[in-house]
C-alpha cells in the first residue's frame, strides 16, 4: 500500500453511479473507467459541470481523499465522502446518479505500511475525525484484508456530523467519541488515543490519523509526547494537486515548506512543524 499509484495524465470525465446521504454528509460513487485503483491516503481533484456558474466560483477543483475503491468493469468504483460547506462542495454534494464528474488522480503520497511507520509494529491504531474519516476507512479495509490488526478510533461533533460511519462496516471494534456525548465516549477522539497509548505500547505503535487541523495537531502532540510514530493525512488549500502551483505549503519541522500535494497528503508527524496550517478549511 505504500507505493504511490500514478494518475493518468489530465482530467477525465466519470459518471456518478450512486449517491447516498449519511449522517449529514453525502457519499457518492463514481465509475472511473480505465482508471487505476488508488492506494489508501491518495486523493483526487474533483469538479463537475456547472463549475464557475455561480458568479465565477467555484473556479478551482477541490481535493478529496478517496474513502473506498473497488475494481469494477475495467476500471474502479471510487467513493467520496463530503459535506456541502462551500460553493464547490455544494455542487459536488448535489450530484445524482448519472451526473458527470471530472477528476484527476489518484494523486499524492499514500499511507505507509505499519512496519515502515514503526519497524516491528504489531498493528495499527487508526484515528479519524469528522469528514476526515474517509482515508481512514479505505486504509482500514486494506489492513483488514491483509490481516493486520487495526484498532479504530473515530470522533464526531454530533449525529448530524457523523456521516460515513457505515464505511467501517459493523462498527464492531470501533471506538467512538461524540462531543455531544449521545453515543460512545463524550469528548474527543484524542481522549481515546491517549488511553490507547497508555503503558509501554506507545513506542511500538503505528498511528494513522485524518481529521480537522486541530485534531491532527492534538494527535501530533500526543504522539510526540508518548514517543509514538504517526502518519497524518492533512489538508491544505491547493489549486492543482500535482505540484504545479506551490499553494499547499506545509511548514516542515526543520525549516522551509513541503508541497502537500506531492510530498503528502500523508506526512510523518515528526516531519512537520505544525498541523495547524493557515488556510486549511477555507471554502
Amino acid at each position: 500500500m505504500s507505493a504511490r499509484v500514478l494518475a493518468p495524465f489530465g482530467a477525465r470525465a466519470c459518471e456518478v453511479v450512486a449517491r447516498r446521504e449519511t449522517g449529514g454528509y453525502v457519499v457518492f460513487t463514481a465509475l472511473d473507467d480505465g482508471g487505476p485503483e488508488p492506494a489508501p491516503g491518495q486523493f483526487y481533484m474533483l469538479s463537475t459541470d456547472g463549475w464557475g456558474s455561480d458568479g465565477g466560483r467555484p473556479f478551482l477543483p477541490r481535493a478529496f481523499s478517496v474513502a473506498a475503491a473497488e475494481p469494477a468493469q475495467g476500471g474502479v468504483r471510487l467513493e467520496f465522502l463530503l459535506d456541502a460547506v462551500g460553493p464547490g462542495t455544494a455542487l459536488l454534494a448535489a450530484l445524482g446518479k448519472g451526473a458527470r464528474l471530472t477528476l484527476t488522480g489518484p494523486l499524492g503520497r499514500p499511507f505507509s505500511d505499519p512496519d515502515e511507520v514503526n519497524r516491528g509494529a504489531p498493528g495499527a491504531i487508526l484515528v479519524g475525525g469528522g469528514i476526515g474519516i474517509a482515508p481512514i476507512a479505505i486504509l482500514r479495509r486494506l489492513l483488514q484484508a491483509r490481516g493486520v490488526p487495526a484498532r479504530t478510533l473515530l470522533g464526531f461533533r454530533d449525529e448530524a456530523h457523523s456521516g460515513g460511519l457505515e464505511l467501517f462496516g459493523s462498527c464492531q471494534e470501533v471506538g467512538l467519541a461524540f462531543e455531544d456525548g449521545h453515543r460512545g465516549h463524550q469528548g474527543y477522539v484524542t481522549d481515546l488515543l491517549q488511553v490507547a497509548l497508555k503503558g509501554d505500547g506507545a513506542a511500538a505503535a503505528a498511528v494513522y490519523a485524518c481529521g480537522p487541523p486541530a485534531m491532527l495537531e492534538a494527535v501530533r502532540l500526543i504522539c510526540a509526547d508518548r514517543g509514538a510514530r504517526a502518519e497524518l493525512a492533512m489538508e491544505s488549500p491547493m489549486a492543482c494537486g500535482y505540484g504545479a502551483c506551490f499553494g499547499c505549503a506545509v511548514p516542515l519541522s526543520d525549516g522551509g515548506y513541503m508541497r502537500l500535494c506531492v510530498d503528502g497528503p500523508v506526512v510523518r508527524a515528526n516531519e512537520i512543524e505544525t498541523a495547524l496550517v493557515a488556510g486549511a478549511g477555507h471554502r
Partner: protein
Amino acid sequence: MRLAIGSLELAHPVLNGSGTFDAIAARRAFGDALLEDFPFSAFVSKTITPEPRAGNPPPRLYETPSGMINSIGLPNKGLDGFLAADLPQLAELPVPLIVSVMATDRAGFERLVDGVSERDEVAAIELNVSCPNVKSGLIVGEQPAETLALVSALRERTQKPLVVKLTPNTADPAAVALAAEEGGADGVSLINTLRATALAPGTGDAWLGAGSGGLSGPAVRPVALEQVRRVAAEVSVAVIGMGGIETARDAAEFIALGADLVAVGTANFRDPAAGIRVRDGLRNSVVEGQSLDLNLRSN
C-alpha cells in the same frame, strides 16, 4: 506569427507560463506518460533566484470569481541547487528548456544568466523583472529605463535567446516592451499576474500570508488581450501572449491580436492536460485549413 523566439524554433505555439507547471513534480504524479505527449513546445521553468528561497508563509492561494490570487514567493533551490538537482531532470523533457530567472540586483541577474548560459541543456532564458531593484527601489519591469539597462547588460553575456516577462502593473507596457527590444531581447512574454489582495472572511485582515499577491485566470484575460494588442503593435520581436487562456479559442484571440506564441498558465491547475487541449485545438484548425478567424467565431 512565427514559431520561434530568436534562434529557438518551436514545433507549435503553446508554452506554459512560468510557475504554472512543474514538469518534475508532474512526472512524479503521472509518470512517463507526461513525456509521451508533452503539452508544450518548450518548457518554461519556475523562476530561479541566485540563492534558495523557502517561499511565502501560507495561505498562498485565494480563489476569486473566474480566477485566483497567488502569493507563492518564488520558492526555489537557488542557482546552484537548480543546476545540480533540477536541470538534469528537465533535460529529459522532449522539448527545449527556457529557464526563468530573477534577482534583486544586476550582479544577481548576471550570475544567473552566466550560470545557465553555459549549460547546453538550456535553450533560452526568460527574465522575470517583476521585482524591485534593491539599489533604486523601483520595479525593473515597470520602468523602461531600468528594463533597457538590465537587458542591455545581460545581452552582452549570453548568446541564448532572451525573453523579458512583462508585468501588467504599469501604465505603458508597450514602452517597457520597446525598451526590452532595444536592449536586445528576442521576445517578450505577457502578462504576468495583476497585483491583488483578498480579506479573510469576516475580518478586515489580509487572507494571504504575504498580504497580497497576483491575480490570474480567465478573470484577467481581457486585460491581457489589450496589453498584448498594444505591445504586439509596437515590437517586432516574438510576443508570447498569456493571461487566462483555457481553450484554443482563447489562444486564437491572442494570436489574432499579434501574439506569435501563447502560454497556458492557471488552466494547468484545473487540468494538467489543458495545454494539450489548447495545442490540439489550434493544430486542428490549421490541419483543416481553417483560418484562425474561423476559430474565433466558433465555440
